[in-house]
């Protein structure tokens, strides 16, 4: 279970960033979720579905708890990593990813989460419905709207 959980860290972190809007808080949320799951591994019942959507749901619930507790603060500050001596190809990838992150940030949180779960974490519609607690029938329409909105933002990003 530990090995499988370790491979879910980045996907969970990406989801938590979309909810909390801050990398460090998101990493803390994933860390808390790991601690929670490792303390009670029996909470996951493999007969009720795979580990990944269940763990992502634990992470999402933890993020929602943190959001409720979070005191009102100013807008989240994006900490950009200094490129340093990164080679051109890496720099280009980083710039593309930053463009994508800016485009995602402009979407409503519900759209950010659904598009990350499908296109980044590669979850099926049934798994997405389980993570987001949605009726299975609404995933396709919400995802489609999110993709259209993201496409529009990315076009604006690429034009800038």
């Amino acid at each position, binding site marked *: 279970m*530990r090995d499988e*959980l*370790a*491979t*879910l*860290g*980045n*996907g969970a*972190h*990406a989801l938590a*960033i979309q909810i909390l809007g801050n*990398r460090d808080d998101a*990493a803390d949320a*994933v*860390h808390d979720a*790991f*601690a929670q799951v*490792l*303390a009670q591994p029996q909470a996951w019942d493999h007969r009720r579905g795979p580990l990944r959507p269940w763990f992502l749901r634990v992470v999402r619930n933890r993020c929602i708890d943190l959001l409720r507790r979070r005191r009102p603060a100013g807008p989240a500050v994006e900490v950009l*990593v200094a490129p340093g001596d990164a080679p051109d190809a890496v720099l280009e*990838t980083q710039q*593309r*990813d930053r463009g*994508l*992150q800016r485009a*995602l940030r402009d979407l409503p949180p519900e759209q950010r989460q659904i*598009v*990350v779960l*499908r*296109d*980044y974490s*590669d979850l*099926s*519609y049934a798994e997405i419905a389980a993570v987001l607690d949605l009726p299975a029938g609404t995933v*396709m*329409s919400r*995802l*489609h*709207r999110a*993709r*259209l*909105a*993201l*496409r*529009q933002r*990315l076009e604006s990003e690429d034009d800038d």
Partner: protein
Amino acid sequence: MTTERGGNPTPHVGDRLSGYLDGELTQQQRQRVQLHLEDCAECRRLLDELSAVRARMGASDLSGLPEDRWRENMDESGVTLARGLGWLLLIGAGVFIGAIAIFHFLADPGLGAGWKLLISAFYLGWLALFVSVLRQRLIERRTDRYKDVEI
């Protein structure tokens, strides 16, 4: 061509285009979308664009952290758990041993009541001081706004 909320064009097949892209349609729905795509250049273009969005998302590194970090993270969680268990055992055993020692001390017939009172006052004084300092430290730790500042 129809227009969806928010002004986004959703020509003809609408959200089933995403379902088609993700392989989430029934065979019948897939065949209908395929037939439509053969005749509709606009939907083919939209499918390509949505496919490009999906590919860009899939190729990105939204987390920006190495996967090893999470493995180390879990090891830390194990250490935290073990430490918590250790403290629990230590405190539990300490309270038990303390209770037995107090019982033997009070039940000792060789020691007069005056001495017992004097020794009790000495230890209770130490205990009161310890609890008072511990309480103050805990309050400071909880309310110190600069505790995370590294100098």
